[in-house]
């Protein structure tokens, strides 16, 4: 056990927190799981609803093969067992935004079985087990706050394909949950199977939390926190919930198995329903659908479409580009970032490129709250800027100025250098002239330097730089100055 383990202490007792996640990831697909309706986010209410989605009499579901491929692809990305035969079941319950009166899901026989996700922790890597992945329909949306006297229902989401990815109870801290979600999202984005957009609800999770005294093996009673839609809320919910449970135990009370909700206004979880009130979903195989079956060839064909995934890419970056594990992790965490990086280094120095992307570019994006795909500076232009530095045409300092200009107008840095006359002065003669000028007008300082005041060297460099309007090649200035002063 490392010393940075996440523990909750109460009355001198230390508790470990056990977390398992059921992530609901919306399948990236043009159409729904069992109908041809569109899935576009943000459309007018009830404009993407077919007769099947609204459960009209006599309407029947027909599986969307693309969604099946997406689930299999995700399964492969999770190093998981792909089940060649799986079964769709009906989960029966009544709600206004559930038109069929049941959700088509997979219960006993999911499409994907056990797999793994590897987390990069400061202390090393940790493998989180995946229990299963299954396909299911999303429900519609009940809107309670538009009409004062009634609830309105929007069925645009009704029937949209979701992948429920169930982890084993292997997570131990809010930070691990953060890394897990991010890694899962990264894998699915690499695969193109889920856009992972949490604001739009494409990724949500039910969080199972229990606590146990450090050093004991038996799992405590868990509580399930339903439908949390941001990593921050997940972390807050876990922290609150774990502390609540520890407190209960310390007071000599038992934790009740129940379903809870996270109140984002109070930052608390509260009880939604107890185990006794739990729904009896009366699962049974959907007689409208045949078992979902495919052969090895189907899986093999999908395997051919699997791109290089984050872990593989990270290893490649470390081995081939000699990046540090830290840099590599950052650069591969997002597919677009890794693509940006690889585009830049096609023509530029690897180390400089990594520094500029993780440094200046990330700062710029963060400041403006942009994704790398929205970067105002194209990888081509960043590459050119980096080349200007490595070729000694501009200094690092000037480069920052140019970067600043580029962030406002995505212009070729070569043109900026030309237009603004920012080219570095590297002509030894011209620099020598400048240096002579500075030394002449500061004879007293020259004497002081010569009598041992070494620190003044910096002063001369600064003066020469100033005289060159910042364009002097610092390396050469240093070299020539040294010759003049020491010669």
């Amino acid at each position, binding site marked *: 056990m490392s010393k940075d383990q996440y523990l909750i202490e109460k009355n001198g007792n230390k508790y470990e927190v056990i977390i398992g996640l059921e992530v609901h990831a919306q399948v990236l697909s043009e159409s729904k799981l069992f109908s041809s309706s569109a899935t576009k986010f943000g459309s007018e209410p009830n404009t993407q609803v077919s007769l099947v989605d609204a459960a009209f*009499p006599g309407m029947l579901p027909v599986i969307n093969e693309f969604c099946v491929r997406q689930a299999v692809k995700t399964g492969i990305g999770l190093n998981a067992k792909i089940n060649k035969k799986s079964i769709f079941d009906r989960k029966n319950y009544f709600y206004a935004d559930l*038109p069929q009166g049941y959700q088509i899901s997979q219960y006993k026989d999911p499409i994907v079985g056990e797999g793994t996700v590897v987390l990069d922790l400061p202390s090393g890597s940790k493998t989180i087990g995946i229990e299963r992945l299954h396909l299911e329909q999303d429900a519609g949306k009940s809107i309670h706050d538009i009409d004062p006297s009634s609830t309105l229902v929007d069925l645009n989401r009704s029937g949209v394909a979701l992948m429920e990815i169930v982890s084993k109870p292997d997570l131990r801290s809010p930070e691990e949950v953060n890394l897990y979600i991010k890694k899962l999202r990264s894998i699915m984005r690499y695969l193109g199977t889920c856009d992972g957009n949490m604001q739009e609800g494409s990724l949500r999770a039910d969080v199972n939390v229990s606590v146990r005294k450090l050093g004991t093996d038996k799992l405590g009673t868990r509580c399930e926190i339903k439908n949390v839609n941001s990593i921050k809320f997940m972390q807050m919910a876990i922290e609150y919930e774990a502390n609540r449970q520890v407190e209960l135990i310390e007071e000599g009370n038992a934790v009740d198995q129940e379903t809870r909700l996270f109140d984002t206004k109070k930052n608390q979880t509260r009880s939604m329903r107890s185990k006794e009130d739990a729904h009896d979903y009366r699962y*049974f195989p959907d007689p409208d659908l045949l078992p979902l079956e495919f052969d090895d060839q189907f899986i093999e064909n999908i395997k051919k479409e699997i791109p290089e995934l984050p872990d593989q890419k990270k290893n490649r970056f470390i081995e081939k580009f000699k990046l540090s594990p830290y840099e590599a992790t950052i650069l591969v965490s997002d597919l677009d970032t890794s693509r940006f990086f690889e585009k830049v280094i096609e023509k530029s120095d690897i180390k400089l490129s990594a520094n500029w992307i993780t440094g200046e570019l990330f700062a710029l994006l963060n400041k403006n709250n942009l994704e790398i795909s929205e970067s105002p500076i194209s990888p081509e232009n960043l590459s050119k800027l980096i080349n200007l530095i490595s070729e000694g045409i501009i200094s690092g300092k000037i480069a920052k100025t140019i970067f600043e200009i580029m962030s406002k107008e995505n212009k070729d840095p070569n043109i900026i250098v030309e237009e603004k006359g920012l080219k570095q002065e590297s002509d030894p003669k011209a620099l020598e002239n400048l240096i002579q000028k500075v030394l002449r007008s500061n004879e007293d300082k020259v004497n002081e330097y010569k009598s041992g005041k070494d620190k003044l060297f910096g002063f001369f460099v600064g003066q020469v730089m100033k005289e060159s309007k910042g364009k002097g090649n610092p390396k050469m200035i240093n070299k020539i100055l040294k010759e003049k002063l020491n010669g």
Partner: protein
Amino acid sequence: MTNLIDLTLNDLVNKVKSKEISSKEITTAYIDRSKQSKKLNTYVEETFDSAIKSSEKFDTNPDFKKKLPGIPLAVKDLFCTKNVKTTASSKILENFIPSYESTVTENLWNEGAILIGKLNCDEFAMGSSNETSHFGNVISPIDDNLVPGGSSGGSASALAAKLTPATIGTDTGGSIRQPASFTGTVGLKPTYGSCSRYGIVAFASSLDQAGPMTKDVKDCALLLEVMSSFDPKDSTSINFKRPNYSSNLNKYIKGKKIGIPKEYRVDGMPFEIEKLWEKGKNYLKDCGAEIIDISLPHTNYALPTYYIVAPAEASSNLARYDGVKYGFRAEGENLIDMYEKTRSQGFGDEVKRRIMIGTYVLSSGYYDAYYLKAQKVRKLIKNDFDNAFNKVDAILTPSTPSSAFKVGDKKDDPVSMYLNDIFTVPVNLAGLPGISIPAGLDKNNYPLGLQIIGKPFDEQGILNIAYSMEEKINFKLKTNDWWIK
């Protein structure tokens, strides 16, 4: 004109094609007779005016290549018909007008048929006497106050009373074959997956099949040919080569092996049914078929199995009728209250009974003992048939354990009502094709039927056997039009 309504579907088709009669003449004849036959309560929705217009349209620009050229047809009100009210004979769908057409009815209209109305049935097809309909019970033309059977009771009654030249029904546990048997008509339930379920109000998805109900076997072959199609909109539709049932229809059944299952000789079966069955065997022998005794050992478990599987699926299929999106809604204090009131008022007693049974057998703690066990038994029943079909080509049984009964006779005794389906239910559980043909009369002159069960997709085989027997039996349905004043 009177003889128009006495013609078979095939006769009508031929006469239209030879331009002897027009679509309008036929349509008018059936509509006129339907109007005189209100007492039978067969129609829940009439589309007479639009039908006349359609027939005129057909006559102006006739297409004689169609298989049902300008033929008027009334259909069971379980088939969704575009812009025509579709209720499943339930209050909960009392005013429901679909914007879409079921695949099976679409197939009819594509071959030139014209809708003249929607026919009464048991509510959501749950019943064996057409007494559970929200729109009142249907009377059989065979006798006053006699049930036509169910659930396709309106269809059987309308057909036997000559209000439609042929019709279509749905059969989940016998809902085509039993009413056909009660009314002296021919009814066929195809192999599961032969007729698309798209647009048919679902009762029990793994059992429901649409099928033809006709005056004779030849009509049955023709109508099945039109109805059956592979439909990508129904995931359980099967893509098999559908033969041309009517042109392949023949009476050469010499050497065919017909099985007689000993388990169908149930206790208390009337002697006249026993006799009828015996007669059936002899007809088959006369046709050159070979009679072989067989065993279907799990037959006894079919009915209880059916009454677990069907309600389980129904309880879930009917969850969509919740007052939220369409159909009847009772106002309530809140969502739950609205659900409770809508469903209490919207569904009839039999439907509620089955929803409750279904909910119970799927409940946690009971699932394994009921639903799962029933699925296992269903497999055994299927295996029984598979084994039997290693030895025989088809199986002959009575269609029902008794003839039609009087309205109200069994209404308060659901189990005795359920027993009506004892010979038909195993066929649905095994997904097989089965046809009921009229074979005789009981002591009250009420019709009795024989059932021929075939191998999967061997509709042609059982049609040919039925066709051969039909000639020997030479059954003539006689009604004296007592219900027409």
